[in-house]
């Protein structure tokens, strides 16, 4: 295990979130009932996704400045895990909506914006897989990544707030902070955000380390092939 302390922290925080999130006291609300606990699991998926995509975008900028291919590996790994969290956010939100808003996909501006945003990032994956040349793939994906991030943010943060939305804190709806008067939910919610972000970072790091290993091995094979040819010719 490399630099294990923050991985231990991830496990401790998420264990706390699971136990306290399922069993801790929560405000009593009609319609929401116990599903208010989804705040620790569904909402935090999006927080984690946004953070991972932000990190991915920062590594894309770094790649364009440094031309170091490892920055591109990191950017891609963080984007992929971010997209995974986004898909989980969509699915969990859909399930929650079915039991509180009365449908798997009520035509809420935030849902539709999130769906468009996810499609933008699916296109990023497609773009990445459509280049043979490593340098071209890295450069074009990095530029697309920066654009995608700055399109996604107004889509999910600004546009839903301009119209009516079912989501708390959007379109004149009160946010969850008005329900959580004694701050008990915050004591779980903020650790949950940090915990899921750390878990996403962990998975991303495993992903790009694997990529670095693959590249190193390919280079070794290429080097030994060149060496072998030199021996034969020499």
């Amino acid at each position, binding site marked *: *295990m*490399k630099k*294990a302390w923050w*991985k*231990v922290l991830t*496990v*401790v925080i*998420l*264990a*706390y979130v*699971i*136990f*306290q999130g*399922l*069993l*801790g*006291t929560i405000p*009593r*609300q*009609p319609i929401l*009932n*116990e599903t208010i606990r989804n705040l620790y699991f569904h909402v935090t998926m999006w927080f984690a996704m946004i953070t991972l995509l932000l990190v991915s975008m920062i590594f894309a900028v770094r790649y364009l400045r440094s031309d170091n291919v490892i920055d591109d590996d990191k950017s891609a790994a963080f984007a992929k895990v971010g997209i995974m969290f986004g898909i989980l956010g969509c699915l969990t939100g859909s399930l929650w909506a079915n039991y509180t808003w009365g449908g798997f996909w009520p035509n809420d501006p935030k849902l539709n914006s999130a769906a468009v945003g996810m499609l933008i990032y699916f296109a990023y994956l497609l773009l990445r897989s459509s280049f043979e040349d490593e340098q071209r793939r890295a450069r074009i994906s990095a530029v697309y990544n920066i654009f995608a991030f700055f399109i996604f943010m107004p889509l999910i943060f600004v546009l839903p707030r301009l119209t009516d939305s079912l989501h708390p804190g959007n379109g004149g709806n009160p946010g969850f902070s008005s329900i959580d008067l004694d701050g008990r939910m915050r004591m779980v919610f903020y650790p949950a955000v940090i915990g899921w972000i750390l878990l996403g970072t*962990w*998975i991303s790091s*495993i992903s790009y*380390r*694997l990529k*670095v*290993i693959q590249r*190193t*091995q390919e280079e*070794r094979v290429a080097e030994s092939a060149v060496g072998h040819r030199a021996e034969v010719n020499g």
Partner: protein
Amino acid sequence: MKRLFFLILSFTFISLNLLAQQAVDSEVAMADQMREDGKIWVVVGVIALIFAGIITYLVRLDSKLTKVEKELNIK
């Protein structure tokens, strides 16, 4: 070993907090019954097991990668 001790300590700390809970009567339907039956713990246990499984997998994956990285001299 130190890590395990740390984990057990944190679990104990969390459960102490939970034992202090009291059921409050209210109009709004809540899962008080479930908690009285003690069956909500079954669900918590299942989720905790799944979480533990995923983390174990991640830890194993991580240590395997570290091993390969050492062999290939990647810092």
